[in-house]
């Protein structure tokens, strides 16, 4: 939302916003999204990705659901066909970035210290270290956490939420804010499903639908032959649609909707971008 052009003044609040103000106590109407600064930076990141034709995919899940393992298997399967890079988010260690680099693709590790999520500014710093002109897909592996990452648009195009069979099939009902924003839900570690008889992928799907979310619910196992084929098909389809010009917004649009009219004022970005 905008601080200068008055576009956040609606018929409902115009009388408040234009009240004459006297000395002493006064109330100023603001109506600004609290995550405005993050969302603005996210839009900027998305422009970067799109200028280079790069599809940005945000992977979110609990710690240990298999995000890095799925990426390793994906790189192995698609290595020749798609040029991939990964931005890794963790509180500490370079471990995940090293695992990805061992597969021969660029990886940037963001260590957040104590922060429980990535935000658009952190991703912005990382993406300037990636050769975007030579890439097709950037995966952003978020901090393992089913709560906080849901609130922060990173400038990605697609949100992938993973859920391993060991975690229980009611996770979408327990973490609705995260799951309802998913573009796809991937049930991982299905090779151990025989040991977890009470897990039912159909119930995962029912919980996801109850959140008014249309995301397909796919099963994946990195340890079984052909175990990630459904995920690879989804990814290739989305990549093709993106390459054909379709644009995905990434995060769910928050109410009230952001205005879309062009701004006359200049947004200062604080840095220059080299053109590649």
């Amino acid at each position, binding site marked *: 939302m905008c601080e200068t052009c008055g576009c956040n003044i609606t018929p409902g609040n115009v009388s408040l916003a234009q009240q004459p103000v006297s000395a002493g106590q006064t109330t100023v109407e603001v109506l600004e999204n609290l995550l405005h*600064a993050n969302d603005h930076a996210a839009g900027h990141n998305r422009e970067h990705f799109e200028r280079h034709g790069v599809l940005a995919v945000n992977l979110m899940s609990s710690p240990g659901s298999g995000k890095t393992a799925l990426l390793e298997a994906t790189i192995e399967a698609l290595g020749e066909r798609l040029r991939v890079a990964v931005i890794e988010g963790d509180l500490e260690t370079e471990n995940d970035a090293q695992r990805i680099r061992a597969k021969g693709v660029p990886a940037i590790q963001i260590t957040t210290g104590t922060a429980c999520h990535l935000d658009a500014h952190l991703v912005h710093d990382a993406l300037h270290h990636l050769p975007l002109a030579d890439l097709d897909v950037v995966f952003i592996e978020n901090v393992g956490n089913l709560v906080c990452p849901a609130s922060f648009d990173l400038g990605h195009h697609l949100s992938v939420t993973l859920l391993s069979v060991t975690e229980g099939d009611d996770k979408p009902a327990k973490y609705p804010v995260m799951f309802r924003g998913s573009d796809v839900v991937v049930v991982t570690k299905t090779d151990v499903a025989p040991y977890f008889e009470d897990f039912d992928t159909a119930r995962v799907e029912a919980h996801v639908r109850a959140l008014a979310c249309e995301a397909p619910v796919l099963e994946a196992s990195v340890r079984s032959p052909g175990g990630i084929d459904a995920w690879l098909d989804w990814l290739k389809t989305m990549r093709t649609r993106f390459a054909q010009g379709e644009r995905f917004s990434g995060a769910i649009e928050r109410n009230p909707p952001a205005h879309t009219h062009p701004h006359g004022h200049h947004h200062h970005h604080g840095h220059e971008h080299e053109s590649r």
Partner: protein
Amino acid sequence: MHELSVCQSLLTQVQTVARNNRATAVTEVHVSVGLLSGVEPPLLERAFRAARAGTVAANAELILTAPGIRVHCHLCAKETEVALPDLRCGACGHWQTRVLAGDELMLTSVALERPSNPPSTPHV
């Protein structure tokens, strides 16, 4: 505990409003926190008490409102109030709905104290 990050953005916005209006103090900060926003009001309050120290809002009260969740049904076109974790239409039960309200996370207004010769109109 991303409420602290949210709170820091909130205080940046509040300080901008205070500065633009030449306020000497901020007395109230009104925030709308929808039930679908992913922010917990008690945690936001606690983070606010820590983050406001040393700012123009050091003594400000944080006043939160939590709008309920309203959805529009793509099938029967009715608007109904629903509750987590079920965002299906409250009238016909269809699952394809759109959230109309309840996901807000907004600074709605700020109460300020100003000296006796303020600018003539408030600045957001």
